[in-house]
């Protein structure tokens, strides 16, 4: 009887039924929706983009495989290398300044100021204004004949002519970096502020009793406790800056003379406006190594303690 029962369970249940109820497979089933979403909306488009970069696809016509031809053309395309240069320039300068200013603001806002909540929300304003709107505002500020900056300086008698903000390659590059910094600082500041507030005051008390100066307090208490947050914030900040599009598109369209094309804007111009999907995809794919490097750096460079990398704390 018992034997017979066991025999039925062993043979009568189909593989499907066993898979459905087996404990080791449960985890798989629970992961499936998440994996499905990730594959459908992240992995598939990414894979498709990489595939397109090896084809000569045009808008309205699927391409055929052409190997590395797109990359070959890009390799001696001055405009492409110009966009790589400006993307790095833009990301590096904007991120460093955003971090410095953001940290400074966060430290200030962490103090016991009157109307603390109000001040903190004011800092967030540049971040909540839609990017395109702030870009258009900056575009007016930098206008070649209506710039408020030029106008003020002329009225003060400091300069004679309107400054050619967006018409000169280097001026335009710096102007865009400034606009990006203005927009990005609140994100860094508020996130670092959140990090600062998790630092227990008793640590500062203990350090102060031990005779630590204000700098030592920052260097040996605040900074080490803040590194996990810094790593996350800077990863995001670098990624957002590297893949920026709206500011550039609204203000310069990559001009003057392609001096301010980011890889993202160049990719859009070639793929969507120019119709060369394959080439646009190649430019977009060329961004991946840079982005991976940025992530690696902040993950392994800034997170030095073992528990941050999944080990035990020492």
């Amino acid at each position: 009887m018992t034997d017979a029962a066991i025999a039925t369970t062993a043979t009568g249940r189909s593989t499907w039924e066993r898979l459905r109820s087996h404990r080791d497979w449960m985890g798989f089933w629970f992961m499936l929706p998440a994996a499905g979403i990730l594959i459908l909306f992240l992995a598939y488009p990414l894979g498709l983009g990489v595939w397109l970069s090896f084809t000569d696809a045009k808008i309205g016509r699927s391409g055929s495989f052409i190997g590395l031809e797109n990359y070959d053309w890009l390799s001696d395309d001055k405009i492409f290398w110009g966009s790589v240069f400006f993307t790095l320039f833009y990301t590096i300068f904007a991120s460093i300044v955003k971090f410095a200013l953001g940290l400074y603001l966060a430290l200030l806002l962490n103090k016991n100021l009157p109307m603390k909540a109000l001040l903190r929300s004011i800092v967030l304003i540049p971040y909540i204004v839609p990017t395109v709107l702030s870009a258009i505002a900056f575009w007016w500020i930098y206008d070649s004949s209506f710039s408020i900056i030029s106008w003020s300086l002329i009225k003060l008698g400091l300069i004679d002519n309107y400054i050619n903000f967006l018409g000169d390659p280097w001026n335009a590059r710096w102007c865009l970096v400034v606009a990006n910094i203005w927009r990005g600082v609140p994100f860094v500041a508020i996130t670092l502020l959140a990090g600062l507030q998790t630092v227990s005051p008793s640590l500062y008390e203990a350090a102060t009793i031990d005779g630590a100066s204000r700098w030592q307090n920052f260097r040996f208490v605040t900074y080490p406790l803040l590194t996990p947050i810094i790593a996350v914030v800077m990863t995001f900040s670098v990624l957002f800056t590297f893949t920026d599009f709206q500011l550039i598109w609204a203000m310069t369209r990559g001009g003057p003379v392609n001096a301010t094309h980011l890889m993202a804007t160049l990719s859009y111009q070639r793929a969507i406006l120019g119709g060369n999907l394959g080439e646009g995809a190649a430019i977009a794919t060329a961004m991946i190594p840079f982005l991976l490097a940025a992530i690696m750096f902040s993950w392994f460079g800034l997170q030095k303690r073992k528990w941050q990398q999944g080990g035990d704390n020492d």
Partner: protein
Amino acid sequence: MTLITRRSILQGAAAAGVAGGTLYDMAKAFAQTSPWKPEAGATLNVLRWKRFVQAEDDAFMKMVDAFSKAMNVKVNISNESFDDIQPKASVAANTGTGPDLIWGLHSTPQLFPEKCMPMSDVADYLGKKYGGWFPAAEAYGKSGGKWIAIPVAVNGGYVNYRTSSINKAGFKEIPKDMPGFLELCKALKKNNTPAGFALGHASGDGNAWLHWILWGHNAWLVDKNDKIIINSPETAKALEYCKALSDTFIPGCASWNDSSNNKAFLAGDLHLTLNGISIYVAAKTAGAQGDAKMKALAEDINHAYMPVGPLGKPAELQLAFPIFGFSYTKVPNAAKAFVAFMMEAQNYNPWLEGAQGYLSHTLAAYDNNPVWTADPKTTVFRDAAKRTLPASGIGTLSPKVAAAMAEFIVVDMFARYCTGQEDVKTTMKTAERAAQRIFR
């Protein structure tokens, strides 16, 4: 008041009689004789560029309404700004879903000719009825000898100038040749009443005036067989001329987009530029509303043809507005009827008048529209479609030409030299290389 009289006369002349000449009656009549009978219960989705003249949009929507009622077709109109039409059209072409008709600009349909609905019957019908298409219009509408789009109108860009400023510079009118034009711009700079043309990524103005310089010097990006001929002595001459001209410009032109020169002109800083009629209309409208400064400005503004270069004949690049459908549409007959209807005299004439000179006709019969004579300052815009070349110049319109224009290959070639980034040889080579990439 005069407007209304003129319109009723126009409508009266073409329709059954003055009394029965309403738009709806005309639409009814069209519905009966139209070679295209809309599908039963058809819904037509039309995407068009966002209007910049209210009167043009009003006339268009009236026409849509009459069509919708008489033909029993539901018409949905959506608007997008100039720059957003092409990406949307491209996505629609690629995915096979989206609007049935797109009214876009430049050579957009040439980006995906095989996805466009054939339009030869509509083009033949209209061409026969209204005196034939201008050659450039035909080039914009056709791909491989077949019509894929109907070139509804072109947006003319011409010399906008302040009469008082050129008089002060010692000129009675805009010189008809390029050297004379350069002298004028030099004199304007000397008087501190400078000229200025967009050297930035201004898809309308920038492409228009730089192609005028290039083509005027008998220099071209490609020849008939798509052979790249940009690296040539003629191009070098065009570059030199452009550099000399740009030295007389108001500062900042390299950052200009399509609206920058309008702003600077209306502010009184800029005295000569290439533009559509929009600066004049803006000044005139503000003047009519009691702005004395703008009234004076409008009186001072006038327009002239682009001077003719060494080529010896007009070679302008005007912005075309082709309307096209996709072969995926389920209502091809409704779409065709709609396009034919909007180009019929009873609709097109008032619409052209509403556009106040912004838009110029592509069918010869509309030369007689009163908009071109009521205000002599609009007259030059009448000939925009006659004087323009297709975007390909002497070459054939194709997706590649459209891509080259979208990537500003010609604009950037001039801008690199005029801003001193590259010398003549290098900038021509860079442009040649960029063109090779597209035409490979």
